[in-house]
């Protein structure tokens, strides 16, 4: 069972994503901001197969989280998906430049989210 770290401050959005992922048999840990994300990453020694992070968040935004993850030895190859509102094309470029593996616009399409995760985890659709 792949383990996913979800970093999202919006309560409803995190409930939805968590539920979609759990339904697809992923183990999900959810944190609300960058500070909590680094605490759990350090605690588990980067024990996740994938990170999904929102961009606009308190303490540290998605880009800061992404660049800090990429600068740490355990995080260089860890797949990261950025999640943000529609109409932010500049953000997509910025995120991809910083080393994001994929980008999803809100509102999310459950099937698209799962397809992208499976692609990054090299899994076959069930």
């Amino acid at each position, binding site marked *: 069972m792949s383990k996913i770290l979800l970093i999202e401050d919006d309560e409803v959005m995190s*409930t*939805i994503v968590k*539920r979609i992922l759990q339904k697809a048999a992923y183990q999900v840990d959810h944190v609300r901001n960058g500070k909590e994300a680094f605490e759990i990453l350090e605690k588990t020694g980067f024990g996740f197969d994938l990170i999904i992070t929102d961009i606009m968040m308190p303490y540290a935004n998605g880009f800061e989280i992404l660049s800090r993850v990429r600068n740490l030895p355990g995080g260089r190859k860890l797949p990261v998906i950025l999640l943000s509102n529609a109409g932010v094309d500049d953000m997509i470029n910025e995120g991809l430049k910083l080393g994001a593996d994929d980008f999803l616009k809100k*509102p*999310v*399409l*459950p*099937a698209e989210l799962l397809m992208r995760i499976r692609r990054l985890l090299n899994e076959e659709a069930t």
Partner: protein
Amino acid sequence: MNFSLLDFLESIFFEFRYAPLIIQVAIIFVFVAVTLTLLAYFSILRRRFRGSQRDKKITRLNELIDDLLIENVLSQDPETVETPGQTAETAAEAFHLPQFSKRWGRQVLIDRLLNYRNNVRGAMGDEIRTLYLLLELDKDSFKKLKSRKWNRKVRALNELSSMEIGVADVIILPLTNSRNRELRAAARHAYIKLSKNEPFKFFDLATEPLLLWDQVELFRIITTTRHIAIPNFAQWITYSSNKSVISFCLKLVVHYNQLKAIPAVLKLLDTKDHLLRAEAINCLGKMKIADVEDKLVYIYNNQPLNCQIEILKALGRIGSGKHTEFLRQEFMLSTDFELRKHAAKSLTNTEPPGSELIGELMETSTPENQLILKHCMNPLIKF
């Protein structure tokens, strides 16, 4: 000593009665002030207490809604359900609880469903919409739309547009021209989202201005709403008496690269309003209409500063190199710093002849002009 409360009050009363008038007035003033302060504190406390009780109730109800939605909608896979709406039908039964028979409970449910709907699309988003309809929450929204209070109307419009529930033109169109700014904006946004065939029909009726912030919001909605019917904006550029509508249409012409609207934009070059004229020149430049270059150069000397700046910018954007000499003259001879700056920027944007000229100008210009050229050649600086 036997001293009762009655004696104490009696002594205060006698003190007050035989005191000088000014002291009596002062005592009454102090008494009223203290009483009012205490009442104000009490009212604040009461309001905060009721607010916190309400928040707790809403939190508890939100948790219940989340549980019901997770159990009945999110846990189902709408992609695999054979009949659309089947998941919502099952979920609707689970939502028949006493909490949702009260008005405040239904409002909390509407808000929560909207939140879910705004975060998820596809079949799951459609199921949430169907659930909203099955629970007859649209009736609550329509009731709010008939309210006399503008804030309730705004709320209703947001709910109906987010849930994509159609509203009759006779109800919504008058609101797009309301004197209340918030209501007007909400109605316009809702109209664009909900009207399938003529989302811009309210432009015909708009007498109230489209403020800049409204334009930004409208632009966001227009560009993010899917399957929106895009009309020919020339009709409003030509016939609208609302300048802000014309200005907004010019921006939309650029965004949709609507070449068929160009003749209408060209006619605006003869308008008496210099602000609109400047916007028309800006539009033509952004659309890179090379045929208009000669006319722009021809009218240049009769224009106010803002139009002259837009003409210089347009020549740079079109960048054909046909009027390099004109730009050079403006750069060398103009007494206005802004004009020299924009002429220089346009020269740097033109085709090779302009680039050659820049080398020559760098050697022959005054130190100040050289500085302007260097500034304009920096690709990081955009204006």
